């Protein structure tokens, strides 16, 4: 190994100039004949932290899949830095945009270090094999997510919270400006949910990542994200700061929920206190 430290990879804080990084234009998403999302427009600016919320089956995960070019739109398009994402070579996309599906699975025996190493795949080719820079990025990603001590442990033997950290570490090693996460807190207890969201928030604050996350928990979404996008039945109902979006009226309209919205005593962000379900 070389002792000279390679040039630091581009992980430094960003210049968020409000430039649009990812945009959906007239997006229609369908599984066969069943239209899940229709006529949706959305723009995500550089350095933003957006949470997509909505009831089960509202199409938020489907939207995230389309934003991450995992799903081909039936109509409309997704633009990544102004280019149609479906027409951009997938490896080029993978250098700019990383994604974590809901509860991803690692093959048996795959260690944390191996998993994080695979995050470097988009930067490698037959001509450009594993480099000192890749090694440095992986080591740094492990350190930053506090996974160095667990680096040689198989991912399938970790606890749920540790496992999610390992995957986030992989996404960090991928070195993309944008990161899409689909319900990263699923199956985690509350303290591990906080742990994972703190990590995601640090990705945004310290690493300048543009983050889009699908979340179920409205209070956590309001606390961590700077912008909420609320969806119902495949339609974008509201978009704005947590204060703008999380109103009692919106909870009734989108979630069929009668609720009080009070300031979160810790963060001051809106906090939802449910009263009862509205039947209509």
């Amino acid at each position, binding site marked *: 190994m*070389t002792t000279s430290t390679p040039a630091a990879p581009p992980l430094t804080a960003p210049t968020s100039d409000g430039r649009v990084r990812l945009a959906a234009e007239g997006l229609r998403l369908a599984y066969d004949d069943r239209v899940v999302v229709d006529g949706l427009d959305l723009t995500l600016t550089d350095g933003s932290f957006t949470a997509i919320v909505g009831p089960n089956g509202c199409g938020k995960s489907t939207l995230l899949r389309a934003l991450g070019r995992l799903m081909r739109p039936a109509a409309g398009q997704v633009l990544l830095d102004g280019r149609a994402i479906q027409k951009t070579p997938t490896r080029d996309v993978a250098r700019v945009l990383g994604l974590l599906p809901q509860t991803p699975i690692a*093959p*048996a025996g*795959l260690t944390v270090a191996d998993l994080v190493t*695979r995050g470097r795949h988009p930067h490698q080719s037959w001509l450009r094999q594993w480099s000192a820079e890749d*090694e440095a990025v992986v*080591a740094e990603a492990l350190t930053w997510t506090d996974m160095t*001590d667990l*680096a040689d442990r198989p991912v399938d033997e970790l606890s749920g919270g540790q496992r999610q950290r390992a995957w986030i570490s992989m996404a960090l090693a*991928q070195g993309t400006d944008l990161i899409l996460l689909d319900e990263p807190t699923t199956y985690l207890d509350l303290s591990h949910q906080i742990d994972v969201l703190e990590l995601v928030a640090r990705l945004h604050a310290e690493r300048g990542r543009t983050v889009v996350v699908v979340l179920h928990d409205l209070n956590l979404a309001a606390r961590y994200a700077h912008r909420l996008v609320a969806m119902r039945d495949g339609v974008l109902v509201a978009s704005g700061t947590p204060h703008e979006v999380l109103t009692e009226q919106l909870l009734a309209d989108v979630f069929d929920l009668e609720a009080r919205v009070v300031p979160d005593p810790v963060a001051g962000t809106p906090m939802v206190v449910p009263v009862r379900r509205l039947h209509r």
Partner: protein
Amino acid sequence: MSVPSVTRAPAATPGTPVRPQRTARTRRRVLGLVALLVLVVVACAASVAIGTRPLGLGTVWTALTDRSLRTEEAVIIWDLRVPRTALGLMVGASLGVAGALMQGHTRNPLGDPGLLGVTAGASFAVVLAIALLGVTTPSGYVWFAFAGALAGTVAVYVLGAAGRGGATPVTLALAGSTLSALLYALVRAVLVSDTDSLDAFRFWVVGALAGRGADIAWQVLPFIVAGLVLALLNAPALDLLGMGEDVARGLGQRVWLARTVGLVAITLLAGAATAACGPIAFLGLVVPHAVRTFTGPAHRWLVPCSALAGAVLLLTADVVGRVIARPGEVQVGIVLALLGGPFFIALVRRRKTTTL
């Protein structure tokens, strides 16, 4: 988090050497690879030396190095044992690699090259060749078997891709099982109605290296070489696909390309192996599991090591078959099933069954 926030370990600073555990694993992999290479040489030597007529290693060496020799031993070695050994090497490697690819693509620990309809297609074509065209020699079967294997895979692919989501490992495996069941029923229908066909077919269907000359080895060699090259190219993609198609795509892998390359490689390898030797069960299933014990899930290691281990296992089984029933011999397909069963049970008992 249950991870104690220790002060940053020096090992994690950029540019420092890799961690000791990682070096230990690399050493285990290299040791395994070297051991397999040695075993391949030993198995080849045994396969050339041991038979109905045992030959000393000295005799073997003289005959191999001095081509001008035309003693009886030299003739046995060059006309019978060397082609048989070469074929065993190729077929064993093919089946081992085809198994590793199949398990990798389907993420199914019970993945077997036969799953894609390769074996059933080959069997059906061979039985037709025997019953309708009166073909009775292994070199006559080869092209029919190969054509049948290709047709079987194409049919499975078309069936598997017919559904809404296109061809996925699950639909392919389902289509493969269905088509195999149908083709085997047709094979049996032909055999039941035609005793002569049954007689010829039963020698093909047990799977054997015996009676296959150098001509067959040469016929299948290009397909096996092409299949092995494609399999090696496919290995990095399989590592990504092991984390699910979404993650693989997210990391920039073109999934359809990886699937296509894998499918073509499996068809070439399993098709060529079946065409040359008849259906040989178990090897493709067992070998990748055994190899994974020291390579872990990394396909860059798993694929080449499965090739070597497959060759070792097939040659060993063939040699055992020549020894246990002297002066006759037991076909390698039967020996493998007998050896493979207990071996697989031991493997499953030793470590928790690998979920892929």
